[in-house]
Structure formats: C-alpha cells, structure tokens
C-alpha cells in the first residue's frame, strides 16, 4: 500500500488543496471566503519564513545576509519598527498596508544600500505592514519576514509586538520561523522571551530553528570566538527547554555574514593595508575600535574609510579578515568573501535551512494551511458541513508526514522515552535531521542506492521488532509503528527511483 502512496509531501499538498476547495464551497459568500482564498494561493507560493526574536538580536542583519543584499536598514539603535515582508518579484516595488484604508504603493530610495521607505505621511503606528518585492534568487525559495522584536524600551515598538502576540485569528502568517537569540542564561527569562515573539508563529520543534546571533561578540573579539559560539549553540540545542521549542540551534555572526556576501574590492584593498602591517603593529592598532579609528596616520586610510570598515566588519571582522589576508588563507576578494561566509556560520545556517525547512516545504505549507482552515471552522462552525471538519482532521491525523512531525514533537517534549541510542535513531529515521534517505539512515550523502536499500531494510526490520515487542512501552511502540512507515516510505521511493 505504501508503494502506491506518492512521494512524501507531494500528495499532501494536493489533499490539502481539495480540503480547501471544499471549505471554499462551504464558506462561499461569507466573511471568511477571501481569507480561505489567500490560504489556498499560498500553497503555490514560496515557503514563508519569518525572522523573530528580541530587539537588537540582529534580525535585519541576518535577513540581509540571507538575501545577499543590504535591503533592511540596520543601525546601532533599535531600527525595525514595522513588520516587513520581502518577496520575490519581477520589479522593485514596495507596498504599504495601512491599518485603515486600502494598500498603496510607497516611494522608496536606497541609502548606502539599505532601503529607505517613505511612509507617505503615516506614522509607524498607522502602518500594518510593508511588502517589499525584489527580484532575488533567495526570495524565489522563500519569502522572508522581518519583525520588530520584543523587549524594546521604546514603548510603542513593544506594544506593537504584544498586540500581535495574541492575534484575533490563529492564522499564522509564516510557515516556519527562525528565532534569533543572543547568548543568554538558561534561567534567563529574556532567553525564553525570544520565543514569546509569536506574532508570526508559535514555536514548535517542527517548524522553528534557533540561531545564536551576534556570535562574533561572545568572546570579546578573540579570533577563536566562533569556535566558542559553536560550543555554546550546541549546549543550547541540547537544553530540554530549547529542544521543545526549536529543532536545533546554529551560531551566526550576522554582521560578518552580511558583509561577506556583499564584500567589495575597495574594502579588500583597505583591509590589505592593515594586513600588510607587521603583526605586532596590527595587534596594537586593533586593540580597540577607538585605536583603529585614530592611530597610525601613515596607514593611508582616511577616518571615513576606517569608520566604514568598522561599521561593515565590526572590530572582530577587521581582525579576522586582516589575519586571513596576512596568513595568505585568502588572496582575492572572492576567496576572502568565501572564507568569511563560511566562518560567519552563514553556510551552515543555509544548509540547516535547506534540510529542515525547504526540503519539507510541502508539509510545512500544508500544515499552516490546515491550521488556518481549522481556525476558520472553529471561529464560524455554522456553515461548515461536518465533512470539511472531518476532512481536515483526517489529514492531520492520518497523513504520514504529520505523524512523523507529531512523533518528532513528542520526542522533543520528552514524552517518548527509551534508551538514548534508540531515541536518537528514532529521531533520525522519522526525518528529524532532514527528510533525505541518507540523513534518515545516517549514511554519507554519496552512499550508493544498494547501500541505502540495505540500510533501509535493516532499519525496517529493527523497527518492526520494536513495534511488536510486548515489552516496548506504549508510547515507544506507537512511535515505532510510525518509524516502520517511514522506512517503508524510503524503500518505496528507492524502488520508484529505479523504475
């Protein structure tokens, strides 16, 4: 029976569309019709990924790094005041949606790269959100949402965020969330507050990942700071409270990442002057930001150029880039950009996004669409023929990808327990580290098909035994049955690939 089921996720989108069609019939002419239309259209649009977290966590900076362009304005003070959507488009366009009145186009300019949007006489409070359409490779895979954070001292900013915390409808605007957190204590309320930013989606180990942001600041700018950050991220990801909320935590030095992907030849030339100094002199110069700004007039950089370097790289970035150039790890601008992108953690983040979000986009999109339908039914059950409600529940309860997600969430919540090795294997088999066959079976990416088939068959037998063993605890045996289905799915897909 599994062999006839379409590849994971694909059929799910179709089934979800069917449910939506039924719902649209049931609600035709009602106040929810347009909302259901929007939900249906989103199924064909790119995955919507929001970037959330506390103020000054580096949300806009990360967004720029992911897009590869400096679009979102960034500043030392609190900067993002309005929820802003960044979407792929054919032309450059900014649409402003006021709280009252019809959406309209807004004029914009680019100030040193970053967008400056003219609100047309409206104050920040009067604007519901902004939509930036921008032709971009990244935005073709995902629509990104930049949000103001919680915990702001500017009362209006915080209030706006809190307003959105308990939205009237449960229709979550985003399919997946990247939670940015600054390095914090595990008992720190602020740390958990990162997840209180629920304007876009409640945290869930299924659709959220954590990013330890501003990783370059952790060790006071030592060159091995990022290794430290990686350790801290791993510690956070292992924390029970964090595991319940996000799939994993990866560190990123956002500023460095943003600069790395937009590095210019002129900047490299300037850095080279620092790199060409004797090591002692360079160390002395880079002891503090003020020193770099004022010392060594013979360096041949104007104070404007020095300030620009600091603003773009940060002190840590200047130290690292100069060291890379001096040690000939990187020679050209391209090489330096590549090195910095890797070292900033951006590459690792992109890989994580690929395996945890983009490969699962059908499931994530179906999930948020079905949740939206469900909330409509609960808000207005009158016209809902029980059929629609039944159809929604049937998909949510029976579709295998959702069962996998449910087991994953239960594992993360500590509901399913067993030997650590067994639990770890279970998490992988049901796609906890990504849905590709080799990830599920813990094999290298270049494993041959024969190897994959052999491993999948072994795994299938193992999980069948566990599911049927009378000594297996109830929760684990339920989970094991899901794992059996996952193994069957992998095998079916491998067979189909041969045909």
């Amino acid at each position, binding site marked *: 029976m599994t062999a006839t089921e379409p590849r994971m996720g694909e059929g799910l989108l179709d089934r979800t569309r069917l449910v939506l069609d039924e719902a649209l019939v049931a609600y035709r002419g009602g106040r929810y019709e347009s909302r259901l239309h929007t939900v249906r259209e989103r199924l064909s649009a790119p995955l919507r990924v929001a970037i959330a977290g506390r*103020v*000054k966590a580096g949300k806009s900076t990360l967004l720029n790094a992911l897009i590869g362009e400096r679009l979102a304005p960034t500043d*030392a*003070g609190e900067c993002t005041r309005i929820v802003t959507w960044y979407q792929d488009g054919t032309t450059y366009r900014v649409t402003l949606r006021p709280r009252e009145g019809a959406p309209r186009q807004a004029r914009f300019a680019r100030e040193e790269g970053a967008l400056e949007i003219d609100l047309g006489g409206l104050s920040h409070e009067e604007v519901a959100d902004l939509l930036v359409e921008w032709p971009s490779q990244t935005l073709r895979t995902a629509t990104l949402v930049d949000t103001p954070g919680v*915990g*702001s*001292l500017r009362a209006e900013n*915080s209030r706006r965020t809190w307003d959105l915390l308990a939205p009237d409808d449960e229709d979550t605007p985003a399919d997946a969330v990247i939670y940015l957190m600054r*390095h*914090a*204590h*595990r*008992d*720190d*309320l*602020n*740390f*958990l507050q990162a997840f209180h930013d629920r304007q876009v989606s409640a945290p869930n180990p299924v659709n959220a990942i954590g990013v330890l942001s*501003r990783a370059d*600041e*952790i*060790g*006071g700018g030592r060159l091995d*700071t990022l290794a*430290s*950050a990686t*350790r801290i991220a791993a*510690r956070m990801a292992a*924390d*029970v*409270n964090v595991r*319940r909320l996000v799939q994993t935590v990866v560190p990123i030095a956002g500023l460095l990442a943003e600069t790395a992907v937009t590095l210019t030849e002129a900047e490299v030339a300037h850095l080279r002057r620092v790199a060409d100094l004797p090591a002692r002199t360079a160390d002395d110069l880079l*002891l*503090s*930001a*003020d020193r770099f700004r004022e010392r060594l007039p013979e360096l041949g950089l104007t104070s404007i150029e020095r*300030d620009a370097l*600091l*603003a773009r790289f*940060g*002190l*840590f970035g200047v130290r690292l880039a100069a060291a890379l150039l001096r040690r000939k790890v990187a020679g050209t601008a391209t090489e330096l950009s590549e090195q910095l992108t890797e070292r900033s953690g951006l590459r690792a983040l992109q890989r994580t996004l690929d395996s945890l979000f983009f490969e699962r986009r059908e499931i994530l999109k179906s999930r948020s669409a079905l949740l939206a339908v469900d909330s409509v039914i609960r808000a207005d059950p009158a016209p809902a023929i029980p059929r629609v409600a039944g159809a929604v*529940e049937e998909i*949510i*309860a*029976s579709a295998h990808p959702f*069962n996998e997600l*449910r*087991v994953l969430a*239960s594992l993360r*919540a*500590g*509901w*399913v327990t067993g030997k650590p090795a067994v639990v770890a294997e279970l998490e992988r088999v049901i796609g906890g580290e990504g849905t590709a066959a080799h990830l599920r079976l813990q094999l290298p990416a270049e494993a041959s098909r024969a190897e994959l088939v052999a491993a999948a068959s072994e795994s299938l037998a193992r999980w069948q035994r566990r599911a049927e063993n009378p000594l297996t605890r*109830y*929760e684990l045996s*339920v*989970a094991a*049955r*899901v794992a059996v289905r996952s193994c069957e799915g992998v095998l079916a897909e491998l067979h189909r690939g041969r045909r």
Partner: protein
Amino acid sequence: MTTAPADAAQAAATPPGSLLALGIRACTAYGREDLARRLAAAQRALNDPSIHVVIAGEFKQGKSSLVNALVGATVCPVDDDVATATPTYVRHGEKHRAALILDGDPPRREDVPVDQVRRYVTERRGAPAGAGPGPEIPVGVEVRLPRKILERGMVLVDTPGVGGLGSTHAAASLAAISMADAVIFVTSAAQELTASEVQFLRKARAACDTVICLISKTDFYPAWRRIRELNEAHLRRAELALPVLTASSALRMHAVKAGDREINAESGFAEVVEFVSGRVGGGVEQRLAEHVRDEVLAVCDQLTATFAAERAALLDPAAARRIVAELERTRQRVESLKTSMARWQQTLNDGIADLTSDIDHDLRSRMREVTREADDSIDESDPADTWAEMQTWLRARIAHELVANYELLRVRAGELSENVGEHFRAGSDGVLGQLTVHSPEPVLERTRLEHKIDLEKMKLRKQAMVALKSAYGGTLMFTMLASMAGIVLGPIGLGIGLVMGRKGLREEKQRQEKARQQQARNAMRRYCDEVTFVVGKDSRDTLRRIHRRLRDHYTGLAEELARSNAAALAGAEKAARRGRTERESRVRDLDAELGRLATLQSRARPS
C-alpha cells in the same frame, strides 16, 4: 587644662583612630573595662569598615571582568559561556587566598586553593535548570588579595547576572543592593538600555543612594559614544539622575600586564577607581568618623557624670547624704532596668511575638496570592507547552514576594528597635543627670546637660541599628535563595502525549490536557507549601536572632549605667567620710580628670 582656642584647632585635626585610643586609655585608667570594650568595638568597625560595592547587571555584560580589571588580577573567573552563579566578595588580605562561605549562623568559612575558585563560582555544566543543589553549595566565595584599592575595607561584590527584572536573581540582587554602600550597574556598549534594565536601575536607586551606570566593552563596540548618548537620554526620560561612566576592562587588563599608562588612560578606569575609592570610600570613612565621635562622647558623658557626682558630694558635705540617697534610688531603677520586668523588656518580648505572627501572616497571604495566580495561568494553558516557563516564572515570582516579606521584616524590626530604645531611654532617663539637678552648685550648665541627654538618645538608636543589621545582614539575601534552590519543583508527568488514529484525536488531547493541568496544580501547591515552611522557619529564626541581639544590646547598656552609677555612689559615699584637706586635694584631682575629659569631649565634638 589646655586653653580653648588650642582645643578648637586640635579638634579638626584629631583623627578618629587616635580619638578612640585616647578614649580607651581613659576608660582603662578609670577601671571601666566595659566602656573600653564599647570603644574597642567601634575601633574594630573603623579598622575593618567593610564597604560593600555591589556590581550588578544583566547576564554577560562583563561584571566579573570589571572586578578583575579593578584589582588588576583574574580573581573572578570569566568564561565565554558559563556564568557566575555565586556572589564573590573580593576584599583586602595580606596574600591572595580564597575561602568558601557556607550557610550557617554565623556563616562558616572554609579555605580553598585560589585556583579552585572557578569550580565554586561558575555554574556547573549540564546541571538542569532549577535542579536541587549538591550537598555543599557555598552561599558565597571570599577572595582576599593585597591591593591598594581594597585596603580601606573595600569589598567588591561580583553578583550573578539578574536576567530580567522578573527573575529570581533580580530579587537577590535588589536585596543585596539594599545593604550595599554603592552599586555599579554594568551594561555593555553592544546595545542601549533595555526596558527591564531601566526598571532594575529604578529599583536599585530606590534601595541605595549611590548608584552609577557603567557602559562596558567600549574597546569592542565602535558605536559606544552613540550608546552612551542613547542611555543618557533613556535615564533622563526615566528621571534617573545617575552618573554614566564608560570603561573597557579588556584595555585595562592589557595595560596592567604591559604596564602601559597610555592604554590605561584609554580604558577609562581612572574614573571608575575614583568613584570606588574616592566617592564611595570617602563617604563611608566620613560616616565612620562620625560614629566614632558619638561613641567617644557617650563614654565621656558617663565618666563625667560619675566624677561630677563625687565632686558635688565633696564640695557640699551637707548635700552628700542627699546625693547618696539619690544615687541609691537610681541604683534600684537601674537594677530594675536589667530585670525582665523592665518596660523595654516587655516591649521587646511582646513586639517580637507580634512581629513573628505578622510576618508569618504576611508570608502566607502572599503565597496564597501566588498560588491563585498560578492556578489561573495553569487553567489557561497546557502545561505540556508552558511548564518550563511556568517554573521559571513561579520561582521568580516567589522570590519577589519573599523579598517583599523580608523588607517588611526589616522595616518592622527597625520600628520595634526604635520603640524598645524609646522605652529604655524613658526608664533610664536622667539616671545620671538627676544628681546634678539637685546639686546645690551645678558643675555643668543646664543647657549642656540637655545636650547630653539628646546625644544619649541618638546614640542608643544608632547602636541598636548596628546590632540589628548584623542580625539579618550576614551573607545578604543570597542565603535565602540558596535555601530556596534546595526545594525542587517536581516535574509533572506529561502522560501519554502521543496519540495516533483518526477519531477522537481532539477529545483525547483535551482529556490529557486536563490531567496535566491537575498534575501541574498539585506540583505547584506542594512547592508553595514547602517554600512557606522553609522560609517561615527562616524568618522565625531571624526574629529570634534579632530578639537576642536587641536584648543583649540593651542589657549591656543597663550594665554600663549600673557600673557608672555604682562608681558614682562609691565616690559619693567615700566623699562623706573624707577629712577636709583630703577633700580639697580630691576635688583638685577630680577637676583635673574632668578637665581631661572635657578636652577629649571637645576634640570629639564636631567643630
């Protein structure tokens, strides 16, 4: 006798230390070891003033680095990830050594090797949040090292990060701050002040007069000048008139290692040091000097009164009998001050009993309120999602209620001490003044006598406050939190969370949610009961301690008065038996003694 103008000139110059030495020598010469002991206590306070400067701030803002940079050595461990978990008291010592402060009354000290400090100060990796502590968790760590900045009794207190105003540590920090002489609030230049930081500053300011805001890590963040402007604006808006300093611990450490004056100047530490040793240290020294002067004056008063009685009896043999009779009556009054029937004793006993039940009632009603709130929030959510946050919230919420309860105890104990002092004074009023009132030839002018009584009253209170503070001071509120950390908020069984199948999924989910809510409520109630029990016992113990200290303090004073009176009585009785010539020479002796005491008094009196 020295002349008046010379006295005045000397008065300003006499340092408190030598004033005390003179006073102690006088007491010993007159055979009044009890008074000498009183002055010796003041001397100890003067020599070891313990000026507490609390370094507070959010997690990972560079508090430990600041302490290290101030003393120019790594005394507080600094780590990229692991944070300070135990307060560290850095004070002066002949050589670098460390000791653990362990819970107890009085707190016990246990020496540990200096390189082991990290083990005790930083939180242990892998320990789950809120788990019960091991058997021997110190309530603090004391590090001593020879440094000029610490010499005058300076104690730098490195505290765990507060982690938002609502947190457990914030409660502890605020309690510590109410005992501190000064607070340095550290915020890094990475970011402008957040809402919770400003709230914390506001509360800190209410609890302590001397607070500064220090922006750290200025070496690393190029925009630190902007951040300072933004912060100053935030403080202005919050109507908090605090000095804002900027400093870089990294540069200062580099400067200390390399012996580089220029870098030291860039670090901005000159101002920080000036704040700590100048403004804070200087202020405390002035206060201590005042205390010393008051003590010396009080002792002089008692001695003077004794001699004055004898002198009056010597000058007028007819009045001698009456003076002896007066002193005899006074003796009975003083004796009754010492018995448990004395009014001040009754006030104290009744007051402590009332206070114990009031504090207990306050604690219980606070905990009832917390329980009610917790119940409501459990009803509104699924513990499966919120239990972790709920635990953090509950602990922090309770910590704040406990601090409020403790503040009540502190304020009420202060009031009680005032009352007891008032009644003690009423009971002892004029004990030593009376005889002079009836003396035919008053030795001292009336006005001065009035002055004396006023002083007496003032000192009683101040002294009692010192006794009181030591009764609940100790290792500050961190002790309370250590005992709270020992109580485990049990995990709740999450039940069968994994349900498969297509029918009744939602119903089953709801049923489970109800079961979880019930479990959460039970766990929460058990926790609150346990906290009430432990803290209730703690505050009863504290009150018992306060009771004992106050009783000892006033009994000691009564003893002093009794001895002064006995000395006066003995002198007066002897005077009646002396011959004329003997009498004259004794009067001359007494005049000389009184003259010396007057000199000491005028030196002690603020010019």
